């Protein structure tokens, strides 16, 4: 179990990072490539909560990424951790840029 733990940790980190990365990508795609959305001032209520929807898609992507991340960690743990450490900066930047410039 102790030998498995770092692999599980790497997988968990990759999965959690995948959620905001997917979220920021989806929102950026909506802003940049989809037709303009309805003005929120004209919408009384909608059953579709876009934010929760994007989070669920992020969770789904994280689930798909999990076996790949586990395999990568099992193949080369040190390299996977280095990639994840860079991934933290990339995801923080993605969220910051999307959140501030493409709300």
């Amino acid at each position: 179990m102790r030998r498995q733990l770092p692999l599980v940790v790497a997988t968990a980190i990759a999965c959690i990072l995948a959620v905001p990365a997917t979220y920021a990508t989806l929102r950026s795609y909506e802003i940049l490539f989809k037709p303009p959305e309805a003005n929120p001032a004209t919408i009384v209520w909608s059953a579709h909560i876009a934010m929760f929807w994007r989070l669920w898609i992020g969770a789904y992507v994280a689930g798909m990424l999990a076996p790949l991340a586990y395999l990568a960690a099992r193949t080369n743990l040190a390299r996977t951790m280095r990639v994840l450490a860079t991934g933290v900066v990339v995801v923080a930047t993605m969220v910051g840029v999307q959140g501030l410039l493409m709300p």
Partner: protein
Amino acid sequence: MTPLSVLMLRLLERIHGHIGWLSVAALLHPAIILRNSKRRARLAVSLATLFVAATALLGGYIYPSYRERLKQHLFIETPKVGWLFERKEHLAVGAVALALVGCIAHLSVPSVADDAVKLTLARLAQRAFAGAFGLALLVAILGVVVASYKSF
């Protein structure tokens, strides 16, 4: 909606705001002390992440009510403030995820045998908390701007 439930929403919103600022303060601590990669701060890391998670859960709980009762009015009266709230929710997603990543990374450092991996994991945790702090600070500032304009 009964007056009591509106009162409850107001209360939850204020608790959400206050815990949010506490989270910002709590995240600053690990962001600073974990610059020393040998430093262990399990309690500070766990508490900071707990604060962030509690804030996020509370925010998620009152979010549907915000959409029902405030969002449209906010966008009719001051679209700029409405868009500030949208920015806040996007940035909050990142802050929560980075805090969780930082917590998992820091708490798992002792379980790793390889020194190089240990160092990478410790750096990863510090970067995650620094990022979470930056995003959470922005979220808290935007939250105050929105809440000072319109509330439940």
